[in-house]
């Protein structure tokens, strides 16, 4: 045992283990980093869920919650707290500032929060956190610190919300029901529920989320749940607008989303494992060749096959242990970098990871050794002692096909484990291998081409290219490893750097710059004239009410059916109009035109929703708006261009149908000044801080209920999300790229002795060191160029599909990616390759010959 460790140490010292160990370390590190991240995010979100209701459960609704729900809770002995959240435009009370902000207002009863605590501070500088079990008193607001920065105001200033004025008394460091953090674009302003009416912001049709928070002992909670479920099965009209939110339910939903997220991350890490496995297999093969002499000798000295297998086992186990531990450590280091990115989404402190990622990664190490290293070493104990006398004896090596299958099985096992689905695992590996095959095919063609080119170039070019072709097996392995990784990196980079701006640049000239909504009926004419005064273009205004479909052909919707479509499960925006909106195309039925019967409401529905909820022309739909029901007939189905960045609606009614619900008005408007600014720098993602359009300030001051959203801001937000996600992916892919480098190293190592001998002979025959160096440089640079080329072509194809399918835009070429791909290919492979084969050039020829025998 000790002796075996000593032998292992000598193997390491002899440089035969380095690649195996580093491949293993990297494979484990990639998986560790990714799974640690996934686990911490997952736990963080789960933790947030249990606190996120700030209660045990909540009744949720888009309209004010009927008193029945509270009285029932009181009867059951539950604590209650009403909350309402909505967005509203706020502007600075600082006379020097024009700033405004679309804030997330939350009105809470003083009993809030029922579970968890509010974390408050007195000022920016204040670091002592004060915990509070109740919300702000009447007349005061507590705000998120960044609002002060945005609006250039301070604690103690007044803040106008709607038509009411408040004093900012405290800053909110954290609130228990902050949610996943994805909605964090709008800063929080918290006020007392009793102040809500004073703001006059809540009008019929306003988009408000009401919640009745409930908490109490288990019996009371269960009793309430039962009561609610009974109400569900009855046909109370009210019930169709409320939903009971429980922690378990949320957890379940989040759980499956997280599972998907985790397997996606781990699968991208699998590419790294695959490449590292390839490197490991190559290196192990070489190691095994070196061990043959040792084993034959040991056998000649009378060591039994069992003893030798035991020795291999001990060595491999120690190696696995050390490399896996190192891998876990490096993975743990790397996960902090990934965490930096995750922080943007999930807040600063995620909980510590569980044991699972450590186990997954540790097991990955073991599976890698079993799948990639062991097959190459398996035959060693069976080496015949006679080999010490006759070196030409066959070494009963496991067949290449066998080793390949074992490797694939190991990968399948890992991907299956990561994704929890054999189908995903098989599909993923299938795609990956298809990708390999295609890039391999490309690579071969390029190599052919390049080889013929070598014939009419200078001597070291010819030599270098000839080498590439002669060792095309190895060349292909290196090409495939590198080009795949580069391809993925280029796609991600392309996504991050160009896709959004290209898409933005392709938006039609008349695309609105802002959306104005929540404009009250009585304000509409004034708003229009304010816009005109400011030179802002606007034409179609859509009246908008929020409601939901509650029945089809007189039949109430069952829970199962509700779950089928988003269009049924939640409240959606309705409008009424006489004209078919632009970029809408009828696919069935007829548009009502001018002469329709105002007594009968008709509906035109978006095609996908109609399919999802299973309705067709002639069906009668029961609609509920704020608890008031009416029927309408489906007379047309249309498609909508969601990319058009103009107001779009799932359901459009005949004019007059929605009048009684006092709709709010919505329109896309175009401010030529902003338009000019945007078109000046459409590709510049740094122009985040745009000067606020002049009309916005006067609008908000005049009409507090109106909300103005700048399209640029929305796109900017999408861009920043994509930016962060792709940055995280890039980091993982860089680790994967390092695995690709290992493949390069392993392939160089395979041919190292041969190269050493050839170059020694060349140089003994009088070739200059320059020639040898030049040939190597040409070889690796060409390799890098081809890898970069394949990657660029592949990335361009992937991006083409993203552009046409996902973004539905005009596809275009990305020359910068080509440059990046080929440039990084040449530099990376050239530098790494030359670095690794330095001894070939620098060791004097005689010495290298002697080293070889």
């Amino acid at each position, binding site marked *: 045992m000790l002796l075996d460790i000593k032998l292992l140490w000598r193997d390491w010292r002899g440089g035969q283990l380095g690649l195996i160990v580093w491949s293993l370390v990297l494979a484990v590190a990639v998986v560790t980093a990714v799974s640690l991240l996934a686990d911490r995010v997952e736990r963080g979100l789960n933790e947030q869920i249990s606190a996120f209701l700030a209660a045990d459960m909540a009744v949720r609704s888009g309209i004010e919650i009927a008193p029945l729900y509270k009285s029932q809770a009181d009867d059951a002995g539950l604590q209650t707290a009403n909350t309402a959240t909505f967005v509203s435009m706020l502007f600075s009370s600082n006379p020097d500032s024009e700033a405004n902000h679309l804030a997330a207002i939350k009105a809470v009863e003083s009993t809030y929060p029922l579970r968890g605590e509010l974390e408050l501070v007195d000022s920016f500088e204040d670091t002592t956190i004060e915990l509070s079990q109740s919300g702000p008193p009447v007349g005061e607001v507590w705000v998120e610190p960044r609002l002060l920065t945005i609006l250039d105001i301070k604690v103690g200033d007044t803040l106008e919300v709607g038509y009411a004025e408040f004093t900012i008394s405290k800053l909110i460091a954290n609130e228990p029901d902050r949610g996943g953090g994805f909605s964090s674009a709008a800063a929080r302003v918290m006020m007392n529920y009793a102040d809500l009416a004073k703001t006059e912001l809540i009008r019929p049709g306003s988009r408000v989320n009401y919640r009745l928070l409930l908490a109490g002992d288990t019996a009371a909670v269960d009793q309430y749940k039962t009561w609610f479920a009974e109400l569900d099965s009855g046909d109370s009209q009210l019930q169709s607008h409320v939903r009971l939110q429980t922690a378990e339910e949320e957890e379940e939903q989040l759980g499956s989303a997280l599972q998907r997220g985790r397997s996606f991350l781990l699968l991208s890490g699998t590419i790294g494992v695959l490449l590292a496995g390839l490197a490991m297999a190559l290196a192990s093969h070489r190691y095994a060749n070196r061990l043959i002499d040792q084993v034959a000798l040991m056998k000649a000295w009378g060591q039994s096959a069992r003893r030798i297998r035991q020795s291999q086992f001990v060595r491999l186990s120690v190696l696995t242990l050390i490399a896996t531990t190192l891998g876990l450590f490096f993975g743990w280091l790397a996960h902090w970098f990934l965490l930096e990115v995750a922080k943007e989404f999930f807040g600063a402190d995620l909980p510590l990871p569980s044991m699972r990622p450590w186990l997954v990664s540790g097991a990955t190490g073991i599976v890698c050794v079993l799948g990639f290293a062991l097959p190459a070493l398996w035959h060693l104990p069976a080496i015949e002692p006679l080999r010490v*006398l006759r070196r030409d004896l066959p070494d009963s090596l496991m067949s290449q096909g066998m080793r390949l299958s074992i490797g694939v099985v190991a990968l399948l096992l890992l991907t299956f484990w990561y994704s929890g689905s054999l189908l995903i695992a098989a599909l993923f590996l299938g795609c990956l291998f298809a990708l390999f095959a295609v890039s391999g095919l490309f690579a071969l063609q390029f190599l052919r081409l390049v080889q013929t080119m070598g014939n009419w170039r200078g001597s070291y070019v010819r030599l270098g290219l000839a080498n590439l072709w002669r060792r095309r097996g190895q060349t292909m392995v290196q090409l495939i490893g590198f080009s795949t990784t580069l391809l993925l990196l280029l796609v991600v980079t392309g996504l991050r750097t160009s896709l959004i701006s290209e898409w933005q640049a392709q938006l039609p000239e008349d695309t609105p710059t802002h959306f104005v909504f929540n404009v009250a009926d009585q304000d509409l004419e004034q708003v229009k004239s304010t816009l005109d005064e400011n030179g802002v273009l606007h034409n179609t205004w859509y009246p908008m009410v929020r409601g939901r479909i509650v029945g089809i052909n007189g039949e109430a919707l069952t829970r199962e059916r509700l779950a089928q479509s988003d269009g049924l499960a939640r409240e959606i925006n309705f409008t009424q109009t006489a004209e078919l909106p632009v970029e809408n195309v009828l696919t069935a039925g007829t548009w009502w035109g001018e002469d329709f019967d105002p007594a009968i409401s008709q509906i035109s529905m978006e095609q996908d929703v109609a399919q999802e909820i299973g309705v067709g022309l002639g069906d009668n739909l029961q609609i509920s708006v704020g608890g008031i029901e009416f029927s309408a007939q489906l007379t047309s189905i249309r498609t909508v261009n969601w990319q058009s960045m103009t107001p779009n609606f799932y359901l459009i009614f005949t004019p007059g149908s929605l009048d009684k619900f006092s709709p709010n008005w919505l329109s896309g408007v175009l401010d030529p000044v902003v338009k000019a600014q945007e078109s000046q720098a459409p590709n510049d993602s740094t122009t985040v801080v745009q000067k606020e359009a002049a009309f916005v300030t006067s609008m908000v001051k005049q009409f507090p209920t109106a909300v103005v959203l700048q399209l640029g801001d929305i796109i900017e937000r999408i861009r920043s999300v994509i930016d962060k996600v792709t940055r995280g992916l890039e980091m993982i892919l860089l680790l994967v790229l390092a695995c690709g480098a290992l493949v390069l190293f392993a392939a160089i190592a395979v041919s190292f002795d041969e190269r050493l001998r050839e170059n020694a002979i060349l140089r003994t025959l009088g070739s200059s060191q320059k020639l040898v160096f030049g040939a190597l440089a040409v070889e690796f640079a060409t390799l890098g160029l081809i890898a970069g080329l394949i990657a660029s072509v592949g990335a361009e194809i992937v991006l083409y599909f993203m552009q046409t399918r996902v973004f539905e835009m005009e596809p275009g070429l990305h020359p910068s990616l080509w440059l990046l791909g080929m440039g990084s290919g040449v530099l990376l492979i050239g530098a790494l390759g030359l670095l690794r084969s330095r001894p070939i050039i620098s060791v004097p020829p005689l010495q290298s010959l002697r080293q070889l025998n």
Partner: protein
Amino acid sequence: MSQVNVESRPATAPAAVQTEPVLQVKNVSKIVPTGDIQLTILDNVSLEINQGQSIAIIGPSGAGKSTLLGLMAGLDTPTSGSISLGSHEITAMDEEGRARVRAELVGFVFQTFQLLSSLTALENVALPLELSGHKGAAAKAKEYLEQVGLGARLSHYPKQLSGGEQQRVAIARAFACEPKILFADEPTGNLDQTTGGAVSDLLFDLNDKNGTTLILVTHEQRLAERCSRIVTIDDGRIVD
């Protein structure tokens, strides 16, 4: 280079020359298939060697000397015939059994040295001792390396040694195990006269003091003549 001091060797167990055969080869043939034809490398070879004897096997290149040596050492199995080492009939044993016999009785010096390139001279010599669980392997290895005149090159790797030096490491390695029977394939093949002479002094000293049976394959007349017996092989047959 060759100040091999035979007198300074520590006295080991006194030689007890025995007369019963320690190695018996009976009607051994080795036939290997090469392509379509069966190639007969050894043809009905018989041989008996007593404990403590030294014997030189000579013959032209390709005669089958190394093959015979490998068979006698239990590294290979004959096509027909039987071989006994000590009291064990190794031709009736399986590989594991032969391995035990090799571990017990046999030491080698290989024609191609068979040094492990990733081990230093000292480690190369110590390795078989370590494998057999010998305490103080390094000290013993050092002692034998000094005896072959390589005391100053303990930590050198094979590639840093000349061919002759490598051969002496291989010899030290075989000696260090103090085997009952030592098989040596061209032990002085790469050595100059003086060093070669010193190495053969060592060999016969071992034979003398420990009663080690020496079985040498050699082209060198001088070395062969020091042996108690010379067996000539030509074309797979013993010619006398």
